């Protein structure tokens, strides 16, 4: 016999779905994810915005285009969809994700502690691993909680580099930023995301704005563009709350000396938001390629401003580091 779960027995709960043999009464206005969470069913999730891909579930039923748009064909073929982007459909049969479908083992080969509670962490995947610098991987942490981290390395480094900011109460970031992590075997997903360099217009000027560990994807994209002989000028703005948060200033100065097309600007909150400084210096972005990474509010605001400054939407690449909501 199937268990029937229903939190509020009111008219809102009109739709019934099946999750792993459990009948779940759903509020049709909420996502599948929120409906399952409301019934205290454990489903992995983080951003709830269709970005991080940690909320994957499986179904053979038809789902909305939106809940599959960012997924690779191999995952779609297996019936995966993003549960945060899908509303419940009457009679839908849902299965939990099979972690072997998208996780592989990797060795944590090193961790270097930088200022501002940031660590550079180096990973060596077992077996093939292809990625574009600037994409992100999902890492499975304690209690199978999954979080996303952007790739700062380029493939010829032969090691994957990520930058992790340690959050005071953060489950996965604190685990990654501890000394015990070196030498551990951890589970990582394939690389995902659309924020990377395309060598289609190598003379195009590029504006890069990153706050905090938003520098990680920018560093990957920057180095990738130089290895692919990008000739256009690059203006990189790196902002943090304070000096300590500018955790990779030395390496950026070295790169600035090495890459003739690159200019790096640093900013702390004392001098005002880095995105405002960048837009003030570049009021006309017609023809520019723009990369925005880090704080979600900064990314959202600056995307609008870059568009109003005449950058084409198709030339704006954004990577918003949305955090999970604090659960009680």
């Amino acid at each position, binding site marked *: 016999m199937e268990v029937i779960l229903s939190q509020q027995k009111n008219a809102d709960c009109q739709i019934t779905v099946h999750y792993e043999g459990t009948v779940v009464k759903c509020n049709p206005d909420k996502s599948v994810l929120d409906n399952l969470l409301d019934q205290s069913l454990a489903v992995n999730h983080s951003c709830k915005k269709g970005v991080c891909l940690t909320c994957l579930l499986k179904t053979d039923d038809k789902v909305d285009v939106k809940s599959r748009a960012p997924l690779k064909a191999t995952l779609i073929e297996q019936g995966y969809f993003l549960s945060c982007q899908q509303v419940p459909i009457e009679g839908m049969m849902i299965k939990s994700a099979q972690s072997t479908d998208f996780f592989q083992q990797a060795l944590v080969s090193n961790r270097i502690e930088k200022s501002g509670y940031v660590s550079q962490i180096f990973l060596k995947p077992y077996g093939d691993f292809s990625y574009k610098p600037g994409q992100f991987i999902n890492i499975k942490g304690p209690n199978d909680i999954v979080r996303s981290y952007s790739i700062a390395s380029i493939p010829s480094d032969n090691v994957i580099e990520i930058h992790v900011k340690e959050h005071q109460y953060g489950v996965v970031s604190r685990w990654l930023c501890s000394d015990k992590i070196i030498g551990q075997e951890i589970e990582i997903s394939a690389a995902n995301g659309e924020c990377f360099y395309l060598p289609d217009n190598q003379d195009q000027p590029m504006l890069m704005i990153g706050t905090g560990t938003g520098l990680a994807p920018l560093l990957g994209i920057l180095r990738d563009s130089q290895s692919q002989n990008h000739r256009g000028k690059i203006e990189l703005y790196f902002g943090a709350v304070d000096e300590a948060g500018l955790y990779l200033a030395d390496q950026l100065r070295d790169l600035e000396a090495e890459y003739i097309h690159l200019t790096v600007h640093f900013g702390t909150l004392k001098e005002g938001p880095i995105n405002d400084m960048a837009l003030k210096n570049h009021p006309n972005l017609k023809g520019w390629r723009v990369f925005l990474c880090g704080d*979600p509010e900064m990314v*959202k605001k600056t*995307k*609008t401003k870059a*568009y*109003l400054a005449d950058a084409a*939407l198709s030339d704006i690449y954004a990577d918003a580091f949305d955090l999970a909501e604090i659960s009680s």
Partner: protein
Amino acid sequence: MSASLFDRIGGNAAVDAAVDIFYKKVLSDDSISRFFETTDMDAQREKQKKFLTVAFGGPNDYSGKDMRAAHAGLEGLNEAHFGAVAGHLQATLEELGVPAAEVGEAMAIAASTHDDVLGL
């Protein structure tokens, strides 16, 4: 029979030309920009394209019910906001050199969505 409003304004090419002008106007207007600000700007731009296609009398599958649903979640949306958007539509058409008669027709179509947009 005379050509439809959509064809007289310039069809899909006119919608393409108008969408960026129109979207930039609403985003720059502090009294309404919050309704249009989102990380998914491509999707929002597509919505503006649909709206312009409707206002231009073009082929669309947008019913009054869709119009209602699309605006239902927008808290605090009122008469003044509707007027501001209509103003930007008119300014966009004028900027593109659409003749006054056609601008008038498009504004009348936009006005007809009033009750659905405001959920009245």
